[in-house]
C-alpha cells in the first residue's frame, strides 16, 4: 500500500523536488497543491501525509493544518527558517511534525516514512526547542501555583521588593507601616520557601518572564 503524500507549497521548485525525490521510492504517491484551496481538494480525495509550507497561500500553515486535522493521518509543516513561535503554534494547531526545508532528500524520505508509521518528524534543533517550551510551561505552571498562595497585598509587596525597594519605601508606597511590610516579607519568604528577599525578587522576575513568554502579560505576575 502506498503512502499518499500531498506537498502543499506555493513554490513550484519545492513541489517538483518532493515529487522528484518520492517518485524514486516505491512506497509513495505524490499529489501537489499550490494553495489552501488545492490542499483542501486533495485532502477531500484522500491524503495520508500532508507536507505544508509555513507560508502556504493565502493564510499560512495554521488554517491549512486546521482544515487537514482529522482528515490526514499526519500533518507536517516545513519552512526555510523555522521560527520558535511559529513552530510551537503549528504543533499546538495540530501539526504532527515540523521540518526544515534544508533537509536532505534521504532525510525527507525517512521523515515521511516515519510519519506514515505514526512517528512525529522533528528536526533535532526543533525537538530541542519543543523540550525548552515544555520546561517553560512547567516553570509557568509552578510560578502560577506558588503565586496563587500569596495574598493580593503580599503580591503588591513582592512587586516592590523585586524592584529593589526598601521596607520604608514600600511602606510609604502602600500607606502601611514599616512593621507590616516586614511581616508581609516574612510571610512571602515562608510561603514561597525562599531564604532571602533577593531570592524572592528573582522568583518574581522569573514569574514575569514566564508570563511574558506565555503571552499572558501581567496576569501571572499580578
Amino acid at each position, binding site marked *: 500500500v502506498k503512502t499518499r503524500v500531498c506537498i502543499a507549497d506555493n513554490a*513550484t521548485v519545492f513541489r*517538483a523536488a518532493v515529487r522528484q525525490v518520492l517518485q524514486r521510492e516505491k512506497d509513495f504517491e505524490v499529489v501537489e497543491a499550490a494553495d489552501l484551496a488545492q490542499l483542501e481538494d486533495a485532502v477531500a480525495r484522500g491524503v495520508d501525509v500532508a507536507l505544508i509550507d509555513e507560508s502556504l497561500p493565502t493564510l499560512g500553515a495554521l488554517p491549512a493544518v486546521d482544515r487537514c486535522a482529522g482528515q490526514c493521518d499526519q500533518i507536517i509543516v516545513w519552512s526555510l527558517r523555522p521560527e520558535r513561535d511559529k513552530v510551537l503554534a503549528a504543533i499546538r494547531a495540530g501539526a504532527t511534525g515540523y521540518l526544515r526545508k534544508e533537509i536532505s532528500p534521504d532525510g525527507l524520505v525517512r521523515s515521511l516514512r516515519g510519519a506514515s508509521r505514526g512517528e512525529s518528524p522533528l528536526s533535532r534543533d526543533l525537538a530541542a526547542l519543543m523540550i525548552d517550551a515544555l520546561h517553560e510551561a512547567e516553570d509557568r505552571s509552578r510560578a502560577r501555583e506558588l503565586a496563587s498562595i500569596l495574598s493580593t497585598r503580599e503580591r503588591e509587596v513582592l512587586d516592590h521588593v523585586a524592584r529593589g525597594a526598601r521596607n520604608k519605601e514600600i511602606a510609604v508606597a502602600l500607606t502601611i507601616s514599616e512593621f507590616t511590610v516586614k511581616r508581609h516579607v516574612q510571610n512571602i519568604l515562608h510561603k514561597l520557601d525562599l531564604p532571602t528577599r533577593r531570592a524572592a525578587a528573582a522568583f518574581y522576575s522569573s514569574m514575569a518572564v514566564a508570563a511574558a513568554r506565555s503571552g499572558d502579560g501581567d496576569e501571572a505576575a499580578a
Partner: protein
Amino acid sequence: VLAARTRTLPLVAVLYRVPLFVEAVIAAFDGLADIQPVKIADGDVDGLLAALRPDALIIEALEVPAAGADVPAVHVCLESGAVRARKDGEWTEVGVDLSPEGIRNALLRAMLRSDS
C-alpha cells in the same frame, strides 16, 4: 572535472544551501546540461569554481560568491522567491516563477545573451 570538460553538454554549477533545490534543478536540465552541485557550506567555493570552470552558474544562496563572475549566472532567493540573471556584471530581476523550468529558461537566456 576533466570528464566534464570533454563533454558536449555545457557544465552548470549549482551553488546551493538547500539540497532539495538541486533535486528539482537536475531534473529540469536533464539532457540539456551537466549539473555539478556545490554545497556552499563545504568550504572553498571560489577554489572549487576555479577548478570546475563551469559554463554557467545557478546560485541558491543569500550572497553571490566572488568567483565565477565571468560566466552567465542566475541567482535564486528561495526566501523571497526572486530570480535574477547576471548580464555584463549587472544583476537584473527576471519575471519567472520559482519553478525549475523558470530557472532553467532564465539561465539559458543568460547564456544565449552572453554568446551574442
